[in-house]
C-alpha cells in the first residue's frame, strides 16, 4: 500500500474520532436552541424581576388594582409583595410599572402592556406628574368604561403605594391631553386626597373621607343617598384595603 494512501486513511480515522467527540456536544447545543422562544412579556418580566429581587431586603404588600378575574368590568386589588424602597419617586415608578406588567393574566390588565411610564415627577407640595407613552391612548380600548377603569387603576395604585402624592397630572408623551382615549377627562389634576387616607397594607378604619370642599366641588355629597351608588364596584373594593370617599 502506497504511503500516501496510508496517510489519508489515518487522517480519515482521526477525523471520525474527532467527530465522535464533537457531535454530541453540537447536538446538545442545537437542542438548547430549539427551546420555545420567550414571549416579549416574559422577557420584560425577567428584566424587571432581578431589579426587584436585588432590593429584596424588605418587601411590602402593595395593592395592585388590576381588573377582577371574574368581572373584567371592575377593579379588584391584589395584595402584591413588592420591594419598592423608600424614595417616593422610585416607589411610584416601580408600582406603576408593576401595575402595567405584573397582572397575573392578560385579561386582568387595566393598561395596555406596551404602555411605558416615560417620566414621573413629584413636587414638594404633593403634586405629581406621570408621563405615559402614546401606547396608552392608542392601545387602550376606547370607551367610558375602559378609560375610567384605567384611570382608577393608576390613581388607586399610586395612592396606595405613595401616600405623599396628593394630586396627579397625567401627560401623554410629554403633552397635556384633553382625554385619555376619547372620553375620560385628563385636563385637570386628580385629587388623590379624596380617596381617604392611604396606609398601604393596613386595612385602615373607615374614615369619613371626601370632606365637603369649598364652593367649586359643590353638590357631589348629597348626590349619593338615593341609590346605593356605584353599586357593584363600591362593594368590591373596600374589602381589600382602604376606606373610600364620600358614600
Amino acid at each position: 500500500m502506497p504511503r500516501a494512501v496510508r496517510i489519508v486513511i489515518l487522517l480519515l480515522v482521526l477525523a471520525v474520532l474527532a467527530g465522535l467527540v464533537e457531535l454530541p456536544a453540537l447536538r446538545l447545543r442545537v437542542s438548547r436552541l430549539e427551546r420555545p422562544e420567550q414571549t416579549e412579556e416574559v422577557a420584560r418580566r425577567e428584566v424587571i424581576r432581578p431589579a426587584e429581587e436585588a432590593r429584596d431586603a424588605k418587601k411590602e404588600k402593595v395593592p395592585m388594582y388590576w381588573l377582577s378575574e371574574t368581572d373584567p368590568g371592575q377593579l379588584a386589588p391584589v395584595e402584591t409583595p413588592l420591594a419598592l424602597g423608600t424614595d417616593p419617586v422610585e416607589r411610584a415608578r416601580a408600582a406603576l410599572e408593576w401595575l402595567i406588567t405584573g397582572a397575573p393574566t392578560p385579561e386582568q390588565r387595566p393598561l395596555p402592556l406596551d404602555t411605558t411610564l416615560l417620566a414621573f415627577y413629584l413636587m414638594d407640595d404633593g403634586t405629581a406628574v406621570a408621563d405615559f407613552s402614546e401606547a396608552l391612548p392608542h392601545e387602550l380600548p376606547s370607551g367610558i368604561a375602559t378609560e375610567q377603569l384605567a384611570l382608577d387603576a393608576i390613581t388607586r395604585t399610586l395612592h396606595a403605594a405613595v401616600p405623599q402624592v396628593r394630586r396627579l397630572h397625567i401627560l401623554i408623551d410629554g403633552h397635556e391631553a384633553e382625554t385619555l382615549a376619547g372620553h375620560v377627562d385628563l385636563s385637570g389634576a386628580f385629587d388623590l386626597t379624596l380617596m381617604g387616607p392611604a396606609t398601604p397594607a393596613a386595612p385602615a378604619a373607615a374614615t369619613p373621607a371626601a370632606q365637603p370642599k369649598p364652593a367649586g366641588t359643590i353638590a357631589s355629597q348629597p348626590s349619593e343617598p338615593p341609590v346605593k351608588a356605584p353599586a357593584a364596584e363600591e362593594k368590591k373594593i373596600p374589602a381589600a384595603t382602604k376606606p373610600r370617599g364620600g358614600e
Partner: protein
Amino acid sequence: MLFGGMGKKKSARTAGLAAIFVALAAFGSANPGAQAPMPPQSPGPPIHAPTTQQAPPPLFPPPSPIERPATPPPTTVILDPAHGGQDSGAHGDPAEEGAVEKDLVLAIALGMRRELERQGIRVVLTRQNDSAVSIDERAAVANALGAGYFVSLHVGSTGEANTAQAYSFGTPHGGAPPAFVPRPPGIEAVRWDDAQAGYLVASRRLAELVQVELAQKLPRSPDVPQFAEVRQLRVVAHPAVAIELSRVAEANPASLEKTAVPLATAMVKAIAAYRQASEGRP
C-alpha cells in the same frame, strides 16, 4: 361665562337645584332670547300661527310662542353623538374595519330624534353628520339653550352586548370631581371647565332615572348608573348624562341602531319622572 342662579353659598345642593329651577322657570315664562345668545330668528310668527311643526326642525327650532301659559314649555333634549370626522371613537378591531363608534352613535341619535319629536319633544343635535365637532363646541351649542337635558351617546369597546350604562359626571369613588377649582369668594362667574359643577346632583338623579328605564328596555343592563369623569359632561351647564351602549365589536351593528326607539322612550320617561319630582308636575 356666566350661568344664572349659581349660588355662592355653601349649601351646594340647594344651589344646584335652584339653578335648575330658575333656568326651567325662566325658560317657561320669559322669552328665551333674553337668557342666552340665540341665532337670529325669522321675524316672530304671529301669535295665532299654526303650531303644528311636523317637519324636522332646523338645529335651533323657533321657540314656542310666548302667549301660551296653559301648556308647560316643551322639553328640550340635546343629543350628542360623540366623536366624528377624524375621530372615529371605539372600533371593533385594530384595522378600523367594520363598525365604528362615530357612525353608530349618529345613526342612533337620528333615530332618537325622530322618536322624540314624534312625542313632542324639542331635539337639538350637536352634530348632524360625520363632521368633527370639538367637545367645547358641543357644549357651546348646549349651554346657549335656556334649559334642556343633555344626553351624550357612546358605544363602548367592552361589556355585554346590547346593554347600556348611564353615567353622570363624578369620580367613581364618590368624591367630588377632583378637578373643579373652588371659586374665589365673591366671584359669581363659573369657569367654563366647571360648568357641570352646579348640576352634579341633578345629573346624578337623571342618570338614576334613565338607568332604571334602560334596565327595562335593554335587559341585562345594570340597575344603577355610574360616575365617570367624562370630558364632555364636564363643560355642560344642564342636567347631563352619558349613555354608553355595548358594544362596538358587534357582529350585527344594525341591532344597536334599533335601540334608538327604546332609548328615546327611556329618555322621555326618565325626563318626565325627573320633572315630576323636581317641579311637581308631569
